[in-house]
């Protein structure tokens, strides 16, 4: 290995260190015996055990998971429909506008998204009586609005890579359009759907700002609990919780990445 190589690896190492040392420290300190977050006094899993006894945290975690899963399912369906419209329906009227509106939530400041949704929900409740109060439903709807944009981007790139003649061949062999979609298109874009689902799930699990706006009393998500308890002083329990979240998110991201890599391009050769 020559000197140039060494330099390259050093910089790579420094880059990764900058990104991941904080996370690693957090995981290390979650196994700390001491109550003081900054002083290491020995290995222990007592904070994990204590976490298991914390009903408020567990409730919040369960709510977050339910919201994330529901959100991901809806986001995948809507995002896929949007991607189909963009890739498969040529130059329909208003395509550019549709595309811009679809991707806008990706760059929209969360505070604005949250505030506008809150206003919407309040107005709707006053005029049509739905949604009844704020909680699970409103948070989920809010999360779907931005998650589906991410799903649409992922599915869209997969769809546009797909060889059109595969669907034409299926149609030529006697399959009607719906049948073609179910037995050819869907299986071929399935990896993108899976990675879109996982992406939507993680995004929802992480979200604090938008949730804070549209949540009601009694519907506190995990990030909200963490945030409020940290303001009172960091408990090592939060380190343990954060480590678990990091684990779940990493696994999801790795699966999403692998599923996109397995069949690089569904080209018809």
């Amino acid at each position, binding site marked *: 290995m020559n000197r140039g190589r060494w330099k390259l690896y050093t910089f790579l190492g420094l880059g990764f260190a900058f990104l991941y040392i904080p996370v690693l420290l957090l995981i290390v300190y979650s196994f700390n015996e001491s109550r003081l977050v900054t002083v290491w006094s020995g290995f222990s899993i007592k904070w994990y055990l204590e976490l298991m006894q914390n009903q408020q945290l567990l409730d919040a975690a369960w709510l977050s998971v339910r919201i994330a899963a529901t959100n991901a399912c809806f986001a995948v369906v809507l995002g896929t429909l949007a991607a189909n419209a963009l890739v498969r329906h040529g130059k329909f009227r208003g395509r550019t506008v549709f595309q811009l509106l679809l991707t806008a939530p990706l760059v929209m400041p969360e505070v604005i998204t949250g505030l506008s949704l809150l206003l919407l929900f309040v107005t709707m409740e006053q005029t049509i009586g739905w949604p009844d109060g704020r909680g699970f439903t409103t948070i989920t709807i809010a999360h779907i609005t931005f998650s589906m944009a991410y799903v649409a981007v992922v599915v869209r790139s997969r769809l546009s890579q797909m060889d059109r003649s595969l669907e*034409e061949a299926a149609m030529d062999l*006697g*399959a*009607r359009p719906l049948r073609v979609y179910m037995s050819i298109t869907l299986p*071929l874009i399935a990896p993108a759907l899976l990675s879109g689902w996982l992406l939507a799930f993680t995004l929802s699990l992480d979200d604090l700002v938008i949730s804070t706006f549209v949540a009601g009393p009694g519907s506190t998500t995990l990030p909200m609990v963490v945030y409020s308890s940290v303001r009172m002083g960091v408990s090592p329990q939060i380190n343990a919780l954060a480590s678990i979240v990091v684990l779940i998110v990493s696994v999801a991201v790795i699966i999403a990445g692998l599923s996109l890599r397995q069949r690089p391009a*569904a080209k018809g*050769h």
Partner: protein
Amino acid sequence: MTNPERRTLEPWQDPKAAPYVRIDHVTKKFDDVYAVDDVSLDIFQGEFFSLLGSSGCGKSTLLRMLAGLERPTTGRIYIDGADVTDLPAYSRPVNMMFQSYALFPHMTVEQNVEFGLKQDRMPRKERAERVGEMLGLLQIGELRKRKPDQLSGGQRQRAALARTLAKHPKLLLLDEPLGALDKRLRESAQFELVNLQERLGITFVTVTHDQEEAMTMSTRIAVMNAGQILQVDTPTTIYEYPEYRFVADFIGLVNLFDGRVAEIQDDRVLVETQLGRRLHMRCSHPHAIGTPVTVAIRPEKLQICQTYREDGVNQVKGVVEDIAYLGDVSIYRVRVSPELLVEMTLTNIQPRTEQALTWGQEVAMEWSPTSGVVLTE
């Protein structure tokens, strides 16, 4: 063409024969571009018909309209007497093999072949039989459990063919069927495809840009350019008696001499050309004197002239400038005037090293008045 046996082999000669596929004044416009421009064409049962042309000439669009994947802007398409213009692809009695083969990557060879049969709700047992029959026909039985990405190019082509034939279509459309194969494989696949077609008696319509492929396989060829069909004929007629300059030039090598009709003697026209002498050509069309024409002569119709005379019929003299040795034949490019090269093909009867004709040598060539054509367009 009065021989009755010939007539059955050449249904297009028979005015009473009903065409199997009738394309009636079909035009296809994409935005403002005419991809196919007022094409009419009859294809008969059992034909191996080729649409030949360079890329972008509209041949693929025409094929896709037969498959039902594109809808004509105007005009009608009839298959077996029925108007199918408005039928979607999935209800047509037609199957198509795609240039990319379009094998479903998430299914095995067997499942690919079975796909079309499943759409017809064929019972499981019958389906299995048909799949077996098709895999046997194309000799890919041992590959039945493989996925398309585990197959070689030739095997993929067979799998795709098995899939399109599985539904026993009456008309098979093939888009550049051999385009993705390497040269050696392509030659054997050509013969195989023709044998298969003759054995099954299915009407084949192929699209190709490879003139050699079209010549070897087809009963008839339609030469297309810029969305229009220029000439529809048997390979022999297309090659020997092209009707257009484009056709003559597109298929095989050809020497083209531009000139004007100077004189008419019985069935011959005498054409004044830039060669500085009049060319004598047999011509069935009566041309008015002064008409601008092009004389087209294939390089293999030229011979070395033993007795060159200044006033000899169709004799020219020049200096060998280039020799392309192809093994069986050699192509000699002979400079006959400062701006004119003439190509002559000679069979290498003697080994190359013993041949008399070499670079810089003067050579006289001649051809018979019946071995070329006079073109006006």
